[in-house]
Structure formats: structure tokens, C-alpha cells
């Protein structure tokens, strides 16, 4: 599939999240990694060790920013001070794109620090898209929105989650960070077919894919990022790249973090699906 304005990073390969327990290993051993994803908020400070480590990483590696607090789905105005800090970091990292979540999480200046699900309504899509456009115009970097995992649904929703995602990204004219683990988690919690989701999104807008592990409970699944990726999620990943073509892929592992090599090896399992895809294309 040819690259386009959004799916434009086909050669980025397989990245992993930059996490504190791996700092020493990365800085001392300098392992070969295609790229690192950083949580923007961890580096939106004014000085100290976080920025020093980041600068050392930037000397050696490509870095992409991923945020957890833009809350595109909140109804209040975008916080200018927050945007200014984020823009300073964007200039520092030279991130080729910036992602955050299709969710809300703050009300009247109070933050839940959670990624809360949205009501899937046309009105919400319109407001959300407007905020994404404003953020992109200010930050001057392409923005991708990530689908979140969720545990609750609203009576007022007027469409499926993937229809809502489509509505938002078309209105905002932005990219998608497709999290196939989140799709799997939500499909179990809300009883839908996850392949309907993967097949229902505009493949040409997918700039990046997230893979991760989760935890299963009796009545629901939690998105814990503390396990390897399970086979059904890999199957969703395979289907996603069949639609999007080779796409920048990242493994998230945020809790009970194992060694750097274990995390990296888990991420590199994605290569077998990419190779299978390339072989299929060559045969065809």
C-alpha cells in the first residue's frame, strides 16, 4: 500500500515505549531499536534528569511523542499553557507525528488522569474534531488519535465506536493510532466483533499501531499493559496491517516491566506478521 499523508511512516519499523527501568540499559548498551515512544507528560518539565535522559536518547534514536492528557473529548477550551509546554517538547524531539487519545478526562480544570470513554454522538464528534484541529494548528505537527479501551457505554450513543472514530478523524482530517489491544479489550467488554472494528476504520488514516497485553477478570478485561500480547490480539494486528500495509508499530508495557530484551523481543514478534504480509504481496 502506498504511503499517504497519514500512513506515511511505513519504514519506521517496530518501536517500544521508553520506560525508567530501561534507562540504564539503553544508555549504556545502546541496543538497536527502530524507535522509542515517549509519554509526553513525563518530559513536559522544566529541567532535571528527565530532560537530560531524553536528550541522550535523542542523540541515538528516533522518538515519537504519545500523550495521555490532551483529552480531545473534553468540552472545555484547550489549555494554552499545556499546549505551549507540549510545543516546546515537540521542538525538542522533532517528533514526526504526535498522538493522544480519543477520550475525555478533565472537567473545569480538574483532572481524573484517566482515559474516560465518550458518548458516541455527532455533537461530541464535532466538538472533539474542532479541538484536534486547534491543537494541530497550534502544535504544527500531524496529530493521530488513539482508540481507548473502555468498560462502560452510554445510553445516548448514536453509533458504534469505530463509526465515531471515523466521524472524528474525517471531520478533524487527522490520523489514527490504532490500538488493536484496546479494540480486543473493548470487544470483550461490550460484546462486538473486533474484526468489524478493524475492517471498519479508514486504513489510509492509520499512522501507527499499538500492541499490548491485558488482564482478564471474571466479568471484564482490564487494559493493564503488564503481559505479553495474546494470540487473538496478534490476529487483529495481522488483519490491521493487511488493510494498512506496513505501519509503524509499538509495544506498550507499563507495569510489572520485564527486562529491556524481553520487552523488545515481544515487540519484534510483529515482524513475522509483516514478513508474511510482504510474502503475500510478492506472490500476488
Amino acid at each position: 500500500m502506498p504511503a499517504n499523508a497519514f500512513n506515511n511512516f511505513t519504514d519506521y519499523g517496530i518501536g517500544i515505549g521508553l520506560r525508567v527501568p530501561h534507562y540504564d540499559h539503553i544508555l549504556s548498551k545502546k541496543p538497536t531499536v527502530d524507535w522509542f515512544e515517549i509519554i509526553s507528560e513525563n518530559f513536559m518539565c522544566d529541567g532535571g534528569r528527565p530532560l537530560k535522559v531524553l536528550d541522550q536518547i535523542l542523540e541515538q534514536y528516533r522518538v515519537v511523542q504519545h500523550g495521555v492528557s490532551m483529552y480531545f473529548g473534553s468540552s472545555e477550551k484547550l489549555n494554552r499553557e499545556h499546549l505551549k509546554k507540549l510545543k516546546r517538547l515537540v521542538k525538542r524531539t522533532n517528533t514526526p507525528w504526535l498522538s493522544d487519545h480519543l477520550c475525555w478526562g478533565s472537567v473545569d480544570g480538574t483532572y481524573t488522569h484517566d482515559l474516560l470513554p465518550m458518548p458516541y454522538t455527532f455533537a461530541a464528534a464535532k466538538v472533539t474534531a474542532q479541538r484536534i484541529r486547534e491543537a494541530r494548528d497550534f502544535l504544527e505537527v500531524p496529530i493521530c488519535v488513539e482508540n481507548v479501551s473502555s468498560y462502560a457505554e452510554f445510553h445516548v450513543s448514536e453509533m458504534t465506536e469505530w463509526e465515531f472514530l471515523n466521524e472524528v478523524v474525517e471531520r478533524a482530517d487527522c490520523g489514527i493510532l490504532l490500538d488493536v489491544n484496546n479494540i480486543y479489550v473493548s470487544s470483550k467488554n461490550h460484546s462486538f466483533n473486533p474484526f468489524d472494528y478493524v475492517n471498519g476504520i479508514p486504513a489510509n488514516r492509520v499512522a501507527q499501531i499499538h500492541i499490548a497485553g491485558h488482564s482478564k477478570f471474571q466479568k471484564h478485561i482490564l487494559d493493564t499493559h503488564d503481559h505479553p500480547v495474546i494470540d487473538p490480539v496478534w490476529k487483529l494486528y495481522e488483519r490491521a496491517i493487511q488493510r494498512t500495509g506496513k505501519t509503524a508499530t509499538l509495544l506498550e508495557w507499563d507495569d510489572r516491566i520485564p527486562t529491556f530484551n524481553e520487552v523488545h523481543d515481544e515487540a519484534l514478534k510483529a515482524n513475522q506478521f509483516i514478513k508474511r504480509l510482504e510474502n503475500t504481496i510478492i506472490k500476488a
Partner: protein
Amino acid sequence: MAAAVMRPLARGDKMQIKWIDGRPTKVVINQFIKPNDRMNSFERLEIYNRQYWFRIRQCFYEDYPGLRAILGDKRFERLADAYLARYPSQSFTLRNLGSRLVKFIEDEPRWVSPHNQLALDMARLEWAHTEAFDNEARPPLKTDNLIGLDAAKICLQLQPHFTLLELKNKIDDFLIELKKNSGLRSEASNAMEQNCRHKKMSRAHGLKRRANFLAVHRYQDLVYYKQLEPGQFRLLSALHNGATLEKACAELAGLKIPGNLGESIQKWFSSWAALGWFCSLESSRGKPQIKKEKI
């Protein structure tokens, strides 16, 4: 929904069954959350309510190991819940979660009684540590910049990562020891916590009650707690409050300082400048006398 998510948990970390106005919570939540074939509306929203508290408690535990050691786990949990309910986060980053804790303890000392002063001291030191860790470091002032300037007119500014503390208890060595044995605070991520895990921490025993003057600062990316003599503290406090160099030095009158006062002051400034504590020089009217140097 936000009100339900952020509402304090009931016993056993469950969502409260009564809503703020006395109605059953499930009746309120049924109005906007759909049930599914396994969970009712209440149970589905309860996941978010629990996760909210697990996340912010976890962060608080990691940021305040000293306070936790003073109070013990159970009392610390009660303080954390009361504080976080009174002052929910107003920042995009969890780093600022404890920014109003000192004020809270001053206003509502019952949560730390009978360790009032000890807990207050520790809360101040741990917040100063947070500030020192990643606040801005401006280009430091060199001692050469001071040569030939009129001490009656100049004001020295301290680094944004620098905090002066006058404590009533000797707690800095204890906190250093605790921090050696505990990891860094978890980073922000969008992952859910499965539960509130935290290590058992030894209680604080034998902390000495005595006046303790500290400068909490960052040097070469590490946070330090530097002991100050009373005269040093008084001088730095005066500078921090905007006094001119001359007026700040006059604050030392009446204090017993061993040796020659002039030589002592010169040595102090030389040491402080080497640590990069001063970042700019202003006239007594607040306008810069010289340009900041980039180093």
C-alpha cells in the same frame, strides 16, 4: 460521570451505594450508563471509580515515602484519601499531586495527629524534593558578576529548583535512607492498575526533634539536602524574600558566627555560587542590572 468517577470509595474499595443527594447511586448511574449481559451500570462505572483512586493513591504513596513511614500505612491511607478528596488534581501531570499537601496538613492537622510537626516537616521536605527534581535550572551567576557592584542595590535570585526549609525535626538523613530503598515514581501511562500495590515500609523511629535548616536543591541532576547554619539560613531567606545584598547581610547582626564575619560571608557565597544557587542579579527596583550569561 466525572463526579461519580472521582467520588471517594466506600469500605472495601467499593463505589458508594448512596448518591450525593441521598438517591441510590445505581438509579443515578442507570440514567446514563448502559448495562451489559454480565455487569450492571453500577458495576461498570465502579471500574472507573476504583481505578481513579488506585492510580492517584499509588502515585501519592510513591511520592511520600517519608510521610508514610511516620504515619504508618493505615493512617497514611486515611490522610491520602482525605487530601485527594479535598484537593483533586488540577494539573495535567501527577507530579503535582502533592502541591497543596502542606496547606492541607496545616489546615487539618487531625489527619496527622499526634505527629503534627513531624508530618508537616516531612511533607515540606518531600514536596521540596519534587520541586528540586525537575524544576527549571537557569544559567547560574558567577562570583565575577558581583565584583564592583553596589551591595546596597543588588538583589540575588535563587534557582527555581531551590527551596529553603526551616524544620523542627532532623529528618533529612532518614528520608535519604528511605529513598535509597524505594524506586522512582511510576510514569504516566494509560494502563490501568490492577490493584494498589505498595511495599511495606518501616516506621520512623528515633527521629530527633531539633531545629534543622536545609537547602533542597539540584546539582548535576541529583537532588541534595544541604545543612545550613542559622546565619546562612537567615541570609539566604532574606535574599529569597527580595532583600538587597546589603540588607540581607545586615540580618546577621546579633548572630554568633565563629571567626571573621566578612570572611565567612565571602566563603559562603563562593560555595553557593559554585553550586549554582544564584541565577540572576536584579537591582532593588527589580530590573536586571546585567544580562544573564549563558554557560
